[in-house]
């Protein structure tokens, strides 16, 4: 009987103790009180919702504000179609050029040691830190009527500014770093052993690249191309400076958004904008998927 009594007393006191433990455990060293946690999460969600989610929602809401038919009609305007065509063309050119450059530059930088490497990477990164307007301006200064090559171009009747070549050049400038930036760290991390093995087994340089290097970096290549393409299609400032805004000829989709918006054709402006917004969303989703692939490749190499 006495035994039982002490047993129950001990039980209840250990229960009280457990509660005290839970209390102190909650004051864990690496986290904050519940109220603070909730406040921080709320502020973060609220901020992202207002500043990032809402603008996205507005694009689609405005695009469909007059119904699906008005939306589709806006997109099938000849002006819209020619802008879409031009945007795709410019994207293909600049992504293609930067893909080749990115692969070549990444090979030179990642697989070899040479002095000035960090400086070279900084130079490749330069366009990231140049204002888009200045990226357009530099080409106006080169190829414009008063530019360094202006009179020579006029004599030979070559049109760069206010034409597709100018738009493609400015876009290439702006998207220059994307592919190289995606590949250099990846290839540096992978080292040169596999390539050296291939060479020692008798493979030529190109065979080594296509059979050994490229399969190892394919996700990185795709990642770079994806981001490069998104920026190429969406570039506004640089293209705006060099395009001349000739309707139906040198208007890309972002430029057309501006023109339509300034003409108060909101449905049409937001219809085009919605295509670009979808491009952005698809890019983000694909980016998340690719990042997972890249991380996995990483893990395999680690273990």
């Amino acid at each position, binding site marked *: 009987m006495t035994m039982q009594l002490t047993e129950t007393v001990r039980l209840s006191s250990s229960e009280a103790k457990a509660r005290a433990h839970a209390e102190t455990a909650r004051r864990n060293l*690496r986290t904050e009180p519940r109220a603070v946690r909730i406040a921080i999460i709320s502020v973060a969600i609220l901020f*992202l919702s207002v500043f990032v989610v809402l603008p996205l929602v507005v694009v689609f809401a405005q695009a469909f504000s007059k119904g699906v038919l008005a939306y589709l009609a806006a997109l099938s305007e000849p002006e819209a179609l020619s802008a879409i065509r031009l945007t795709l063309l410019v994207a293909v050119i600049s992504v293609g050029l930067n893909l080749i450059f990115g692969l*070549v530059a990444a090979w030179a930088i990642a697989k070899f040691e040479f002095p000035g490497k960090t400086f070279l990477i900084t130079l490749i990164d*330069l366009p990231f830190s140049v204002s888009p307007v200045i990226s357009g301006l530099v080409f106006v200064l080169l190829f414009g009527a008063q530019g*360094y090559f202006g009179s020579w171009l006029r004599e030979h009747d070559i049109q760069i500014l206010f034409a597709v070549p100018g738009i493609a050049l400015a876009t290439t400038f702006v998207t220059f770093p994307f592919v190289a930036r995606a590949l250099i760290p990846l290839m540096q991390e992978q080292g040169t052993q596999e390539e050296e093995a291939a060479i020692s087994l008798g493979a030529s*340089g190109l065979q080594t690249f296509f059979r050994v290097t490229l399969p190892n970096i394919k996700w990185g290549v795709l990642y770079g191309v994806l981001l490069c393409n998104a920026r190429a299609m969406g570039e*506004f400032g640089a293209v705006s400076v060099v395009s001349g805004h000739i309707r139906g000829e040198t208007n890309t989709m972002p430029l057309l958004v501006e023109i339509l918006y300034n003409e108060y054709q909101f449905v049409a402006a937001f219809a085009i904008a919605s295509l670009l*917004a979808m491009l952005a969303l698809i890019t983000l989703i694909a980016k998340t998927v690719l990042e997972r692939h890249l991380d996995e490749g990483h893990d395999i190499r680690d273990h």
Partner: protein
Amino acid sequence: MSAIVGRRRTLPGFGLTMGLTLSWLSIIILIPLAGLFLKSLELSPEQFWNILTSRRTLNALRVSFGLAFAAACVNLVMGSIIVWALVRYRFPGRRLFDAIVDVPFALPTAVAGVALTSLFAEKGWLGAPLAAAGIKVAFTPVGIFVAMIFIGIPFVVRTVQPVLQDLDPEIEEAAGSLGASRWQTIIRVILPSLAPALLTGLALAFARAVGEYGSVIFIAGNLPNVSEIAPLLIVIRLSEFRYADATAIATVMLVVSFVIIFAVNRLQRWAQNRVPAH
């Protein structure tokens, strides 16, 4: 090149790829940028000075730099809060919000511009209640500020996030076992550890906002001396064929960008030096 390094290379193609890299880099990036500096050298110092100190230029630079700095500061604070929530807490939709942070990177600036304008215009979803409260956002400097906040937020988050993730949990436990309160641990241990990343994020967000064009011009109102940003003034001067003015303003902005890159590189090096060698 290989002779300079004096080392035999096992892999082929260094000369070729390095040659192509340097040529292409020169054609697309270096020569055009050099053209800008050459052009600015054609100006006499007086001309340069007069352009930069004209009222409209000064005001445009003030608007761009001042608001960009203010927006970067807001981003620093809000970005830190977002990073903390994303890294340290688990809540429904966390991964979604993590992905959403990248939207300003991915969304074409013109789209962001028209969307923000429509959102904050007097009849917009947010503009209407704000206008009722007497706050006018669109077509005022406040609008520029808002657009710059939008464009800068991923820079802070994506710079600080990996550093907070990799922060050794032991240093917080160490601080706690030495008697520090949670607040003291955050202020004295965690924040200083994040300082290089925070400063880098601030600098990147600032640099981006200073040069930003597309997402700002729609909402700005573009009133000379009030809500006219420097990149827009460059575009205006170009359309007026006042190339000298455009060049001078662009040169100043480019120099500031380069100083920022340099500072960020130094910051990164500083941060790396503080990492104990394991």
